[in-house]
């Protein structure tokens, strides 16, 4: 069923299980494409859990935007099965982002210093890599992001 995410005073519902199921079917294929194994984009120090509640919504909104703008878009694959699964994930992320945008519109998704700082850290890890390599690595780390969301 649906999972309710409590992000400070922003509360949304999302189909995390459907996303997990979809990602689990392509995880090995995607992670196998990631040749840079000595670094990570989504690190524990910048996780949602380690962020104070009032900043969690903003951090997640920025991370989702990163995935929508620069991960799903730059991930290329000739494999139609993987293409369908990444499309499914991208469209599900779009649904979550719409819900977060509602929170933003209702002033329940403020961006404090902590969210801004942590997102810039994530972005700097991301931008250490080429766009293509960053997209592959970030997509391979989707289970980390889903786990962060699971624990909200």
């Amino acid at each position, binding site marked *: 069923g649906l999972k309710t995410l409590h992000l400070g005073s922003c509360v949304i519902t999302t189909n995390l299980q459907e996303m997990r199921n979809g990602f689990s079917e392509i995880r090995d294929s995607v992670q196998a494409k990631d040749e840079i194994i000595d670094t990570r984009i989504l690190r524990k120090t910048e996780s949602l859990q380690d962020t104070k509640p009032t900043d969690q919504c903003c951090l997640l909104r920025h991370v989702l935007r990163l995935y929508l703008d620069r991960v799903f878009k730059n991930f290329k694959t000739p494999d139609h099965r993987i293409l369908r699964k990444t499309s499914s994930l991208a469209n599900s992320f*779009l649904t979550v982002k719409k819900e977060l945008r509602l929170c933003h519109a209702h002033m329940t998704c403020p961006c404090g210093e902590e969210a801004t700082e942590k997102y810039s850290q994530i972005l700097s890890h991301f931008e250490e890599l080429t766009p293509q390599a960053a997209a592959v690595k970030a997509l391979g780390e989707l289970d980390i992001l889903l786990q962060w969301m699971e624990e909200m």
Partner: protein
Amino acid sequence: DGVAILPAPQNLSVHSTNMKHLLMWSPVVVPGEIIHYFVEYQGEYESLYMSHIWIPSSWGSPTEDPECDITDDITATVPYNLRVRASLGSQTSAWSTLQHPFNRNSTILTPPVMEVTKDGFHLVIKLEDLGPQFEFLVAYWRREPGAKEHVKVVRSRGIPVHLETMEPGVPYCVKVQTLVKAIGRHSPFSQVECVRVQGETLPL
């Protein structure tokens, strides 16, 4: 060069019931020939961020029938664009695109097939398996003045569920509706079905 000689498929429409989505169109007819169709889709993400990207359908690329089960393609609650083209050897038609994007939240929801039975004094219900996205809200009550209606959300699919231990001689009634949280909707209630245990006294 054989492009767009074939007429494009017409009258595209999606028939969606209980989260099963079928894209249909009028067949392209060339006497004595077998036409193949290719179905592609793009979700709202693709149309917003990469509008040139179209994804071959899981089951409709290619297909010989003028229909394609797109259930496995429509996996998020966003509008999807769909298109079809016909192919015969090296000849390929133009694409025909569904006039209005399809969103799974428009699916028609019907109550499940319901089997209400007695197992001794136990009121038992068995519901049709409609898939993992479905839950069922079961309402049941004693048919007598002032009786209270009980409600139970059932997630088990196709497995008998015990509702209540019945008192002999009193009719017990049941109705059910489907719930699909992924789209935040539910079906109307089913017909009411009642059963009664004959008037034996309850065993001590």
